């Protein structure tokens, strides 16, 4: 058995070697975030946490990506729940998944074309006489509330949520719904006892993927955001490529903190889903 084990680890070797590259980047980033003039120090982190710009950016980032994630999940869940038999057919499914084919940047640009003050919708409303000038159209892109960012992400991630939830919904036996009915349960009981436990693991997984992506991705907020408050990724980019090199360690420190947050969140989700109850849900007894 030992030789077999060795062979398995050998098979892992190429991917490990490949992972060395990003791993080196990460270690270097962590290293730089903890050093000033080649001395180990927490100074960068202290400076970061004292920076009003960073705190505002963090709050704005968390708010924006949490909103985008939750709205995507709820819309995706509702669409899947009510249309999954329809979505199992090829054409509707492909139509729903269409936004996934476009890069985020392209989708963000499209949102600007459609929803900016001089965009397609605004011009159509003007032509129809609903508004008299483009200044009456609400500011939905490059706004300080992150509405444009949220709209882009929701539009883009809803298909992803459906992609994740559809197989789960298709696999729920309809007899379970009948069972709850014969035991006296109503619609809410059916959702709570049949659907929710089935989708919960995938739901949490999807939340983590969408949340960590929207929290840290650069292109959409760069395109659709404002300069203050800005998303963490935009701020870090600024610090990294800014005129002085002094801010670089701050960029690293910000990204390290962000990664740490995502790792902790993932660990919490992992521990939760490894509780006996949710393991049993997957048919595992130990």
């Amino acid at each position: 058995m030992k030789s077999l084990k060795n062979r398995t680890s050998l098979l892992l070797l190429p991917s490990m070697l490949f992972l060395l590259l990003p791993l080196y980047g990460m270690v270097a980033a962590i290293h730089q975030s903890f050093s000033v003039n080649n001395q180990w120090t927490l100074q960068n982190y202290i400076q970061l946490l004292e920076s009003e710009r960073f705190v505002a950016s963090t709050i704005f980032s968390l708010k924006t990506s949490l909103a985008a994630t939750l709205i995507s999940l709820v819309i995706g869940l509702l669409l899947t729940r009510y249309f999954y038999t329809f979505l199992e057919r090829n054409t509707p499914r492909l139509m729903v998944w269409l936004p996934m084919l476009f890069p985020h940047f392209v989708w963000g640009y499209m949102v600007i074309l459609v929803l900016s003050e001089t965009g397609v919708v605004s011009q159509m409303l003007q032509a129809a006489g609903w508004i008299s000038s483009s200044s009456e159209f609400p500011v939905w892109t490059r706004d300080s509330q992150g509405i444009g960012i949220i709209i882009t992400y929701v539009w883009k991630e809803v298909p992803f949520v459906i992609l994740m939830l559809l197989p789960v919904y298709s696999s729920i036996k309809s007899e379970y719904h009948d069972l709850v009915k014969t035991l006296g349960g109503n619609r809410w009981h059916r959702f709570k006892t049949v659907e929710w436990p089935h989708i919960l693991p995938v739901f949490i997984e999807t939340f983590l993927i969408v949340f960590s992506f929207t929290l840290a991705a650069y292109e959409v907020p760069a395109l659709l955001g404002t300069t203050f408050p800005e998303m963490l990724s935009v701020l870090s980019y600024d610090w990294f490529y800014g005129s002085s090199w002094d801010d670089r360690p701050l960029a690293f420190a910000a990204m390290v903190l962000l990664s740490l947050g995502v790792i902790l969140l993932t660990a919490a989700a992992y521990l939760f889903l490894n509780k006996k109850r949710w393991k049993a849900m997957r048919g595992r007894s130990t």
Partner: protein
Amino acid sequence: MTLTLEVNQLKKQFHDKSILYDLSFELHKGEILSIVGPSGSGKTTLLRILAGLEAPTDGSIVMQGKNITDKKANKRNVSLVFQQPLLFPHMTVKENIRYGAKIAKKDLKKTDQLLKSIGLELYADHYPSELSGGQKQRVALARAMATEPDVILFDEPFSSLDPKLRQEMRYWVRQFLVERSITSIFVTHDIDEAMIMGDRIALFHEGTFQQIDRLSTLHEAPANAFVARFLGGHLVIDSDHYAPLSSCYLSASDAGEDPRTFEAAVQQVTYQNGQAIGHIYVDELNEKVSLPIKHFNHNDRIKLYIAKSMIRRFGGSHL
């Protein structure tokens, strides 16, 4: 004495296809009715209608004197035990059993009593994935009972179990229901199971009951050729006449004077309870029967003798 369940002239149509028609029967408190019939004949549809999961096209269902035909499933005092146990995988045994009782705000002490009576006290905090097939089905039964239904419906609940366990479960469930005098309907395609489980047996075919009687009556006076063939204890001679197999002989001398004679062939010899059984094909009637056989072998041509006085007309108590 009021009847627990009264079904009148039930009809069900899917598009143009008639699944059930003119189906009537009644059940007294504590009675167990087996419904037996070929697979795919609509037995499950009947149960689903009784449970309220589907609406009948016509007819009425009266329970404890109240018409419940238009009541939804969750407002009916009926439980259904499915083919699969369908336990909630993320709930413990105890939580599963309590589920329906909690919704109905019933006394939870009684449900804990149920846990004891299915012999799974030690498994109260286990999850379904830790139970065997038979244990799961016992929990499913306890969960169905916890809502204290007026009637429990069983839809081939043992079909997913292996044969030995299935046999054990039949006796166990039957005793469990009888001891508590729980009114129940037990659907199966297996006549043996129907005979073990039911006080009365309803033979279901082509959308309605061909006959509904105690087992002995079914055998002594089958209502028609379908019933006689399904039970297997008779030779059907034509659509009006049959002869019990106990009066079919393989030698002329046993059958008395002037017997009717049928040409036949032994298709196969098997053993049941240590006795050789010949599976005999009667060419002239295009019927197959099974008889104890001694001197014949596979492929032998034989003659079947039946005393004319033993040939009877169909028409036992039809419903």
